[in-house]
């Protein structure tokens, strides 16, 4: 399985994370190779979002190790962490668009720190390229409050790609969308993966999205990766805990 892909770019070993007495991740292990797209499945509240927030350093972890591009996240200072984050895109569940800024400003904001060497014209072209990718160039001067849920997800995706990251972390990208819009977003994610050659971790409950976008799936239960494999391998497993995720298809 691993030979199809490049070198490991995210290595998570024996990860432990708790909130007070609530142990969320107990002994989580996962490796992502360059070019690989992995979907993490799990029940609500099992710690999927916590996992990707630990990867970008938004949350601290109590034990284990997360290495991204060979660097241990917990050991990085703020400057090094910011440099690393420029290589990682993050699509939030709520899209997290800055609601006091227009769509254009939302995309330009990501370039404030890491796109300093770019001219105004280059920034403008880059923003327009990303909005064209997601089919929303016409919304460039709209405010987030004027956008529908699907449009906000697309803009969130465009914003995460504006720095041309090598890894994109998706936190439930299709949650709250109707099946047609959810499929459009899944197709768009696949298109962006292919166009920009990104690797990704996708947190999702949407099995259609998982089927479409993932090279590999991992099932998170009780804070560990309980099972992993391709979509077909997991869907044919008889283990009731794993099978439960595929019953809805």
């Amino acid at each position: 399985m691993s030979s199809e892909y490049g070198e490991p770019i995210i290595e998570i070993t024996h990860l432990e994370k708790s909130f007070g007495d609530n142990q969320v991740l107990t002994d989580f292990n996962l490796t992502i190779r360059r070019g690989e797209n992995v979907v993490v499945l799990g029940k609500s509240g099992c710690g999927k979002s916590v996992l990707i927030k630990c990867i970008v350093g938004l949350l601290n972890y109590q034990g284990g190790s997360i290495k991204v591009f060979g660097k241990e996240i917990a050991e990085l200072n703020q400057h090094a962490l910011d440099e690393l984050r420029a290589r990682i895109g993050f699509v939030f569940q709520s899209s997290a668009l800055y609601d006091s800024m227009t769509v254009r400003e939302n995309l330009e904001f990501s370039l404030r720190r890491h796109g300093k060497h770019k001219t105004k014209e280059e920034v403008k072209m880059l923003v327009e390229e990303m909005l064209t990718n997601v089919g929303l160039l016409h919304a460039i001067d709209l405010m987030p409050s004027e956008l529908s849920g699907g449009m906000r997800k697309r803009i969130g995706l465009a914003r995460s790609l504006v720095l041309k990251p090598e890894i994109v972390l998706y936190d439930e990208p299709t949650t709250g969308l109707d099946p047609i819009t959810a499929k459009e977003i899944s197709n768009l994610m696949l298109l962006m993966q292919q166009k920009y050659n990104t690797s990704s971790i996708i947190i999702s409950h949407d099995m259609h999205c998982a089927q479409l976008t993932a090279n590999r799936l991992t099932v998170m239960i009780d804070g560990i990766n309980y099972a992993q494999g391709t979509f077909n391998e997991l869907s044919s497993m008889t283990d009731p805990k794993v099978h439960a995720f595929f019953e809805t298809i």
Partner: protein
Amino acid sequence: MIMSPRNTIQHPSSSWMSPKVKEFFNEAGEIAQFAGRFFREVMLPPYEIKEAIRQSYRIGYLSLPLVGITAFIIGLVLTLQSRPTLVEFGAEAWLPSMVGISIIREIGPVIIALICAGKIGSSIGAELGSMKVTEQIDAMEVGGTNPFKYIVVTRIVSTTLMIPILIFIGDAIALYGGFLAVKINTSVSATLFFHQVFNSLTFSDAIPAIIKSYFFGFAIGLIGCYKGYNSKKGTEGVGRSANSAVVIASLLVFIIDLMAVQITQFLGFL
């Protein structure tokens, strides 16, 4: 679950301190840490000047109508209500001096700071709280922008600089309101009224008032930002942040005022 010895040992202070008292001291400590982080971050580049100007416009210019109307009414009512008593003692001529001193020294700064605590404190608390629960602050951090510097530092700097200006303008409007109230009953000219007001004022009246205005501005910005930035529990938390930002900032305005009176008395200004 096996409890480790560390978990079972109770700190001596925890046995006699009620949870509410502990919570109060915890929060006071956290606010002090938050203020400390502000002083560290405000010194270090990059400086978010554009955002600070934008916030100054929102906090200062957009608060002017409310501050202006309130100050005008305060000046007018204070003068109208004081006049009969002064007339009774044959001291009507002291009216401009009394109005001037009370507005510049105390009523202007405190009332306008309270208005600002309500308008600006709640707005900052709710805005930052909403940004927190909708993950906008996390998105900024992931995007490589220091959210504390961009969101918190700019707002605290703006309130610290703008609220004294609002108080200065409010004082002027309140004095004008006072003049109109005098004008209703007598034929005193504006020149005479303001001449009497400024004749009775000294630097020792104005300087402590100006200095405490900066502390009011800082406290309102700090509490609004602290409450919003640490907002929890979804939309309910946003409401709580806005509400507690107003309550704590208003309380701090009175505490700072009390301290200012003691300090100015100690320094011989009173």
